[in-house]
């Protein structure tokens, strides 16, 4: 095969992996900390995209400012969901899954009622719509931008959870709720903030995906299944999710070059199922955490 094609495939793999990662990051945090499978994650991404659209179209906020604003606004929605619903269901994992599915229905239809079902789009600064020609590979600036934002988000998340007091609290609660409580850590508040951060990350993801393609009430669904697979095969940890996203992104890109996109998708699903058969705890995750 032509070396420039191979190189393109690899570069694209990084880009696809970073998109998977951005989509999965918030989910991984919420799952890793609170053990909640948030089925409304896709709709939080969608909310992020609509937030950006609204800020841009009606208030004229520039795109780069929309990213942090989307984070904040969707994080607030996350807090609302956590306070009103999820906090009552922490000891019923399957029920949180169902309840958040209900939330996703409500969010999707609510947005449709407000914005209508015709597609919207996010306006990008002109330079993000250009490309970078490096001779043998050609990369679009927007894809580089997504990779950079992904790296930034990963760093910020890592810093928050491993280098701040809040992070220590979160990990204490994750390890042992009762013990943490005896040290005066409010696990309810910790969960709430984690949920807010997870939702906020989905909001940023939405703001960026709005630039990559179309903004529709149903757009969340297309990311959510892949995002779940990243989290599950990564074992629910931050590092695991990064590795899983990077690896899957490469596979998707390479298979798409060799075969076609549809078959690539199918192969990935198959690989994840087989992988989990032999390593049910995921890439990074301890096996003996029962009882």
């Amino acid at each position: 095969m032509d070396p420039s094609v191979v190189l393109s495939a690899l570069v694209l793999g990084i880009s696809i992996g970073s998109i998977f990662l951005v989509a999965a990051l918030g989910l991984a945090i919420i799952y890793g900390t609170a053990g909640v499978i948030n089925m409304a994650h896709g709709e939080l991404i969608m909310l992020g995209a609509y937030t950006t659209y609204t800020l841009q179209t009606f208030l004229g906020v520039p795109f780069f400012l929309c990213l942090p604003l989307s984070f904040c606004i969707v994080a607030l929605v996350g807090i609302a969901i956590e306070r009103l619903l999820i906090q009552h269901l922490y000891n019923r994992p399957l029920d949180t899954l169902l309840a958040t599915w209900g939330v996703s229905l409500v969010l999707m239809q609510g947005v449709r009622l407000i914005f209508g079902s015709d597609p919207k789009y996010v306006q990008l600064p002109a330079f993000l719509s250009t490309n970078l020609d490096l001779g043998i590979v050609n990369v679009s600036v927007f894809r580089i931008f997504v990779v950079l934002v992904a790296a930034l988000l990963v760093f910020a998340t890592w810093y928050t959870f491993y280098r701040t007091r809040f992070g220590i609290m979160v990990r204490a609660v994750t390890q042992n709720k009762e013990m943490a409580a005896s040290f005066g850590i409010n696990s309810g508040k910790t969960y709430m903030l984690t949920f807010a951060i997870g939702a906020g990350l989905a909001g940023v993801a939405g703001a960026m995906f709005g630039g990559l393609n179309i903004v529709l009430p149903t757009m969340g669904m297309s990311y959510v299944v892949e995002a779940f697979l990243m989290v599950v095969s990564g074992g629910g940890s931050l590092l695991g999710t990064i590795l899983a996203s990077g690896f899957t992104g490469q596979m998707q890109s390479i298979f798409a070059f060799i075969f076609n996109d549809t078959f690539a998708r199918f192969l990935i699903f198959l690989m994840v199922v087989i992988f989990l058969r032999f390593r049910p705890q995921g890439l990074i995750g301890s096996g003996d955490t029962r009882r």
Partner: protein
Amino acid sequence: MSITRRKFLKTASVGALALAAPHVWLPGNREAWGATLTAGEPIKVGLLFSLTGGLAVPEEDSTLVMQYAIDEINAAGGINGSPIEPVIVDAKSDFKVYSSKTRELILRDKVTSIFGCYTSASRKAILPIVMQQDNLLFYPTCYEGAECTQNTICTGPLANQHSKDLIPYMVDQFGPRVFFVGSNYVWPKESNKNAKVWLEQANGELLGEEYIPLGSSEFGPVIEKIRAAKPDFIFSTVVGASDIAFHRQFKQAGLKVDSMPIASLTTGEIETKAMGAEFGAGHFLSAPYFQALENPTNEKFVENFLGSPYGKNGTTHYNMEETYTSAYVFKGALEKAIADHGIEDVTPRKIRDAAAGIKLSADVSPEGEVWIDGENFNTWLVPKIGQCQADGSFKIVKEAPEHVAPDPYSIYPDIGKCTADGLLAPDGTLRTDVI
């Protein structure tokens, strides 16, 4: 061996058959239409489109424009003095609902005809019922053909009409090397087969053919393949949200619209509006209708429609116009059927038969004169090529010199030819209800 098994099945089924007294239906026999039209009474038709869900974007417009057309016909005195009464249902973008709503429309509401569907999948879902109940479906958009039933009238372009002009035009303007990109389903694949025929005639060269999963928004690998192939233009049958992602990523990847434009069968006014005009500008579309068509009928249609309460979405496009003309085809055919048989004896099947050769003049049809083929009941029309402008509107750059005949089996001459009575195979056998 087969006899004993048959015998067993027969015995086993006798009991069940005894319970099944009413509605026993033998294959080949069709149910009669269980209603009659009365002069002066409303004529019920079903509008079967999705008002919610993923298909709502194009189909809600179809419902609106049908209501507009029905109002217009009723205001002008209806059909033989009877007003048309639309029965509007929501198919919720779910083929199960299409199927059950069709039953509702035919069996409960006893509609005379159904106007509905935007996708072949939903059409295939409801055709068995429509055929069995011998009702009539007006399918008002483009499709792949390769279907021959006695219960469908289509007012959109078939695969053989759609790209006939587009391919030679693009080869002529930009060069012979082309790359095909489509969504992964039946219509793009069939359209591409037709396009290959035109490409060969135009001495073009096909560099590659790629299909994207429906709804997918990742065009990275495909765009890299296109970049490596360096075509003169791209022929696209990508649909829906994917189409918008494709155009956006095309520009973001640095492909140039001047040297490698996309010639599409789908990217119309709605899509360019949704992707942002700067991503659509410069690309081409082949369709029988554009909002920018300059003729008095269209100008009147656009003005009146957008001024009416139904024009709330602010645009007209080929799909809506094809739906609009289907209402007038129905009117023409029903008037003819009433004249031929008397209003009491009109059935949906007789309306279909009467539609053969029905012509809509340029005064009625915004896209210009069209007529229904007397054999396969698709539409003779004039495909036009438009180029998207910086503001998202289209400029007509070419109009076919004459009407193009619809032929659902143009690339499958071995299978047969669609006639009014069924699919006529080359060996002379006639098969009905081929779907």
